[in-house]
């Protein structure tokens, strides 16, 4: 819908101008900072002409928690719990960006098993994030039930996460060059079970929503984003993919082990709200596909098997030591297990760990788009500068332009479809 479609038509009577004769006044509605559909603390100062938005200004910073200042006051490892709160719906991604930045600067080698586990957790996290988006987006449109269904399914993934990280939302699981702990025995089976169980739920949701005439009527052709606008504001993620630009860092600049895995990048046609919905739903299926492949390919397999290998090596070492004691010779070197099977790379003391001077800008394809972490290390135990480039920050910047000329109720549909999450905007 273009701007000219919705603005009030001007009645042309010769000699009489409607604007002069009728005393109309614009209505300034101040949406937020506390409003049910601003997804947190955002303030939108909206000028309405009737129900048509004439002007909009976004005021942010209501959740500015000085994350970047905190990084300069604590050690690299101490900063890690804070990262969870930068973007709490998909905090594995922020951790990944941060941890890789340190690893790149320090040149730490990461075992392949770790990369695979990181990939599985990140993709599961993408599903939780998209599920929450699905629920709240439809809540913004006025449908209540999908919200509850989405939360029910998120709990299943939370159970999977809780097994290995011990937390529902704030995981703090990745470490420099490895993980905090290996996955638990049988965890992969749980993930596999989830992968088999979840597509049915997705089918159900799509059956409720995809062809729902009200949803279609409220979303199709609305909030059009094209490539130009994405470049203008730096819009990324499913929003740019819905506009037909296959910009996905997992494909274009593969990190982790995404280059060893087959997956598609869902792309929309028109770049409207409906396309963004469809792209996100398809992405969840792609994530499941990635997880399934990753489970099959993970080096070492289940944690129990790796543990067996580890025990075997330990037993051999014991035996060699005992033998050496008897004979009085040096113990024979025992071949270690494949380093790819380990969940920790180089052994480091995390509390005092400091990378050498250098800088890195690591980027991850988070559920909301391009997430960047710019880190400058000056060789001291504290980072000189950590800058977060949240995807939502740029996605939100495009909202005022998208909204001009649209109806007020469309604000919720368009804003919801951008999938903005405020802590990532304000940091």
């Amino acid at each position, binding site marked *: 819908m273009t701007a000219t479609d919705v603005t009030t038509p001007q009645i042309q009577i010769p000699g009489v101008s409607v604007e002069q004769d009728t005393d109309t006044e614009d209505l300034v509605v101040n949406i937020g*900072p506390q409003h049910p559909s601003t997804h947190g*603390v955002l303030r939108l100062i909206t000028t309405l002409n009737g129900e048509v938005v004439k002007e909009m200004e976004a005021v942010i910073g209501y959740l500015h928690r000085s994350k970047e200042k905190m990084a300069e006051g604590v050690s690299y490892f101490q900063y890690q719990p804070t990262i969870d*709160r930068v973007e709490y719906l998909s905090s594995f991604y922020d951790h990944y960006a941060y941890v890789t930045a340190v690893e790149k600067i320090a040149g730490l080698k990461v075992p392949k098993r770790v990369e695979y586990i990181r990939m599985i957790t990140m993709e599961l996290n993408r599903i939780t994030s998209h599920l929450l988006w699905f629920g709240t987006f439809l809540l913004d449109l006025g449908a209540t039930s999908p919200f509850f269904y989405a939360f029910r399914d998120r709990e299943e993934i939370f159970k999977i996460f809780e097994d290995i990280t011990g937390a529902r939302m*704030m995981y703090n699981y990745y470490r420099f060059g490895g993980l905090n702990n290996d996955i638990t025995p049988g965890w992969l089976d749980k993930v596999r079970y989830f992968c088999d169980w979840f597509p049915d739920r997705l089918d159900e949701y799509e059956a409720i929503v995809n062809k729902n005439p009200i949803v279609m009527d409220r979303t199709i052709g609305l909030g059009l984003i094209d490539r130009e606008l994405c470049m203008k504001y730096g819009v990324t993620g499913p929003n740019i993919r819905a506009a037909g630009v296959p910009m996905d860092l997992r494909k274009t600049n593969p990190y982790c082990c995404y280059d060893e895995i087959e997956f598609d990048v869902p792309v929309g046609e028109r770049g409207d709200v409906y396309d963004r919905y469809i792209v996100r739903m398809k992405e969840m299926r792609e994530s499941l596909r990635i997880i399934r492949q990753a489970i099959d390919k993970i080096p070492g397999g289940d944690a129990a098997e790796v543990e067996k290998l580890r025990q075997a090596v330990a037993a051999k070492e014991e035996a060699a030591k005992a033998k050496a004691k008897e004979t009085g010779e040096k113990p024979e070197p025992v071949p270690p297990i494949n380093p790819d099977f380990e969940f920790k790379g180089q052994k480091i003391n995390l509390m005092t760990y400091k990378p050498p001077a250098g800088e890195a800008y690591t980027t991850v394809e988070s559920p909301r788009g391009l997430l960047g972490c710019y880190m400058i290390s000056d060789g001291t135990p504290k980072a000189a500068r950590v800058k977060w480039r949240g995807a939502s920050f740029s996605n939100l910047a495009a909202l005022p332009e998208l909204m001009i000329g649209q109806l007020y109720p469309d604000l919720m549909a368009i804003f919801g479809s951008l999938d903005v999450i405020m802590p990532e905007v304000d940091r």
Partner: protein
Amino acid sequence: MSNVAEADQTQENKIFTTLQNLLESNGIICSSVDLLYNWARSNSIWPMTFATSCCGIEMMSTSASNFDISRFGSEVFRATPRQSDLVITAGTITHKMAPALVRLYEQMPEPKYVIAMGACTVTGGMYEDRTYSVVRGVDRLIPVDVYVPGCPPRPEALLDALMLLQKKMRKESIKDRRQRAELHKPKVRLGPGEVLLPLGTTDEEFVRWGVQAEGYNVTEMQKNGELELVRGNCKFRHERADERERARKQRTGA
């Protein structure tokens, strides 16, 4: 919600008055009214949808299927403060957000309760040190009834806090509650949008939070020192210019 005018607190609730008379005259009626009153309100706590960050997601989880806050009659999340009894401060409160929270609290009708959910609103949490923008505990702004530690607390913890609040409500008397309400009335009346006042402006002109009002160039005014934006004392009472002058004199000892 900036256009919502400040509540006219002089409006008396007639029911309160009549009931108080009843209470003072007859002890038996007092206890039975209290019983009914406490039973009713402790079982229908309507929270406000106030979620700023991470804890907000857990609050949503609490209302969702697996934890189901509706069992306690509290699933009626009202978006407007006028109809809610409880504000769950789910998430960090920053200096920029603080006036909004205080205003929301003041807009709620008595009896009103606060659950400080999560470490950030209890003490400032991980932002207690080394940050410049976070309020160290929401109890510096509004009175808190139940503190829920955790970062974020699990949904079960929030349910527990709700039950604790119910217990607290059942012990209260309608009379005490009224005295408390008197205590928490705002001391200084604010006009609509009067949050920050440049020096020498009339009451009609004002600069809104974080936004440039018409005719003002805040950056420039700040550069030239024309803008004396005072956030008042800890309760965000933004006094008028003369009151401000007096306060400054007192502070400096002049």
